[in-house]
């Protein structure tokens, strides 16, 4: 029995994914649990494992964007025939319009919203004519004359395959372009010249498209197409900017924290414990005591979380990602370091799984290693707080009326004011500061 490999839904709200490449070829033996292909979702590029053992009989989709649930390959037994039904052209998952009944006659004038998603229909059924065949002769030339001569006439948009692909990848709507190719065909250059807009897979509060877009064709300007991750970062941060926030800044004396990190390194030679690990642990403990900070705001309710799932902002090659250390309050310092080392390494190798990025309740962004003294971070929605951590450096401070030099670290908490009041945020930050200065208090 063969089994179909369908594009999995790897996270809430995932409607489609982009197959980057297959790690097996047709005819290869595949064991259940073995990495089968690389999938790019709007959160991460990850390897997806085979759910069945057998021979990879057929790869139905070599690469490109695929809606969730579509069959992308077939695994079966050696010699078995694999056939994959051509995916029926259906409206995109979030299409506003009602689904089009399949029995709908092909002559019907498609509305423009459907035309956008119905490229497959058009290519899969080339013989269907827009009008009854009256000419009889010159069969081959007829399709060209049956097509509208101009784009935007309500019919099919005439665009080269490359232009279609670029438009798809860059989120450019072909309907908005006028083609400069023969007979008004949209060619790749037209897409390149067009203003690009990130694909909107979910609504963004407010209208951000009015922002003046940079010109792409200027001399000496390199136009780098947005990766999914880059588009997601842009979309999420733009959404985050809409949230009313306030910032709180404190500095902590890191003398004891540094000693603790040093001691932890001696005791756990197998893993390098860092200040970030201590911060993760301490923030988790502080969140456990300040549950009104470990929250998320929704229009209907305030969600309070029982565990502290702490996200660590990581600069991966492809862009910023925030893998999450779950239930950080339960981990020892060494376990935290272990978990952090694992996700950071996988983030840098582009091997994060969707699950690594989900269910965070709080984020730490540490730029101390770059010598940044202090900065403010932008919220990582739907989370309600993010801690921006600067460098630990010797600074003069006053102790018992004397000026002394101490290793000081400045951190700034950005807070979603819809969810958290100023005093609650300040109280939480005071706890973090006291835990850092006196780590034993965190016990």
């Amino acid at each position, binding site marked *: 029995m063969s089994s179909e490999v369908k594009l999995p839904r790897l996270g809430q709200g995932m409607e489609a994914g982009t197959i980057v490449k297959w790690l097996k070829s047709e005819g290869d033996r595949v064991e259940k649990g073995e990495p089968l292909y690389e999938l790019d979702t709007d959160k991460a590029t990850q390897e997806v494992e085979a759910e069945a053992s057998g021979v990879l009989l057929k790869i139905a989709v070599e690469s490109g964007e695929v809606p969730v649930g579509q069959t992308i390959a077939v695994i079966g037994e050696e010699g078995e025939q694999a056939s994959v039904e051509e995916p029926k052209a259906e409206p995109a998952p979030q299409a506003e319009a009602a689904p089009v009944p399949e029995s709908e006659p092909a002559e019907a004038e498609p509305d423009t919203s459907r035309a956008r998603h119905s490229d497959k229909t058009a290519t899969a059924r080339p013989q269907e004519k827009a009008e009854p065949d009256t000419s009889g002769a010159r069969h081959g030339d007829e399709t060209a004359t049956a097509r509208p001569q101009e784009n935007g006439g309500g019919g099919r948009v005439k665009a080269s395959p490359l*232009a279609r692909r670029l438009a798809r990848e860059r989120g450019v709507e072909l309907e908005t372009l006028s083609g*400069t*190719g*023969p*007979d008004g065909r949209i060619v*790749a250059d037209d897409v390149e010249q067009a203003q690009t807009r990130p694909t909107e897979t979910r609504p963004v509060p407010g209208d951000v498209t009015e922002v003046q877009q940079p010109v792409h064709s200027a001399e000496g300007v390199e136009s780098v197409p947005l990766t999914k991750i880059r588009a997601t970062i842009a979309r999420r941060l733009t959404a985050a900017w809409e949230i009313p926030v306030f910032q709180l800044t404190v500095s902590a004396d890191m003398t004891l924290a540094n000693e603790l990190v040093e001691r932890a390194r001696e005791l756990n030679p197998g893993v390098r414990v860092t200040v970030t690990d201590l911060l993760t642990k301490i923030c988790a403990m502080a969140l456990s005591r300040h549950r009104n900070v470990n929250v998320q705001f929704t229009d209907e309710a305030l969600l309070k979380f029982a565990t502290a799932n702490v996200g660590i902002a990581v600069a991966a090659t492809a862009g910023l990602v925030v893998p999450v250390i779950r239930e950080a309050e339960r981990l020892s310092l060494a376990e935290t370091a272990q978990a952090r080392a694992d996700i950071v390494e996988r983030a840098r190798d582009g091997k994060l799984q969707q699950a690594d990025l989900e269910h965070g309740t709080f984020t730490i962004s540490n730029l101390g290693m770059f010598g940044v003294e202090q900065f403010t971070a932008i919220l990582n929605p739907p989370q309600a707080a993010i801690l921006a951590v600067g460098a630990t450096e010797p600074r003069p401070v006053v102790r018992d009326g004397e000026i002394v030099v101490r290793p000081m670290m400045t951190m700034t908490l950005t807070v979603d004011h819809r969810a958290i009041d100023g005093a609650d945020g300040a109280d939480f930050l005071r706890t973090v500061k006291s835990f850092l200065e006196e780590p034993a208090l965190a016990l």
Partner: protein
Amino acid sequence: MPELTYRSAVRQALADAMRADENVFLMGEDIAEMGGSMGVTQGLFEEFGGERVRNTPISEMAIVGAGIGAAMQGMRPVIEIMYEDFLTLSLEQIVNQAAKHRYMSGGQIKVPLTIRTQGGAGWSPGAQHAQQLEAWLVHVPGLKVVFASSPNDARGLLWSSIYDDNPVIFFEHRLLYPIKEDAPAEIEPIPLGKARVVREGTDVTVIATGPLVHRSLAAAEQAEAEGISVEIVDPRTLQPLDTETLVASVKKTNRAVVAHEAVKRMGFGAEVTAVLQEEAFDWLDAPIERVGAKFAPLAFAPPMEQYVIPQTADVLAAVKRTVARS
């Protein structure tokens, strides 16, 4: 580096193979004392004698049949069919025998036969002596098909054809025999199934064979003057086809022209075009253009012949259509 003509390149590959391996021998019409109707085998009878450079009766079926028999017995015969138009007389032996024995014997029998032939228009040989029939043979599983466009390619590919254990149809083009290029003294074998990027470019890939490689080069120079950068790829081996190189080039340039002297309709270029759209559809920014002979027998009259076969201007026009703007 010494200069080598296409004709002497073929001759050198034959002579070197015969010197290196006594199983290699030649058969064909008038190839011995006369040295072949195109002079390719001149001097070989004198060096190797009548046992190894054998004249045959005027029966293409018999020549190919004898070649198949010798090949099955372990020889590496290289036979010459004087004009590729005459291949039609030997197709039973080529298609039903040479191409099938290895498969039907479960691999127990090999047919390491090389069939050299030449053809092509451009010198008024008329309708029966000028056709380009490579498409007939690339359609047959079990055969390899080579069409060299340069002296170095002819020499290196013929050597590999002789030492291939399968029947190979080796097409030469009449107009290419006198062309020259620098060549190392020693033969450098060229593996079958590898295309050659003849000229690098960025705007459009011209996939060309035989004389159309040279016409495409001329067209590319003219296009360059108009700011169009043309890449030219010669598949060299038509079967098996190096789709990887062709597809990679088209993915780079996003446009393709396929050019050969053979009749365009149902031609080899139709297959190349189909492969490109199958494997590079999402990279194509313009319809793939085909350049080939008009669907008509070739005339004796030079102006009529020139009208039917594709010229440099036809390639240039196709190149421009791929980058055209309305």
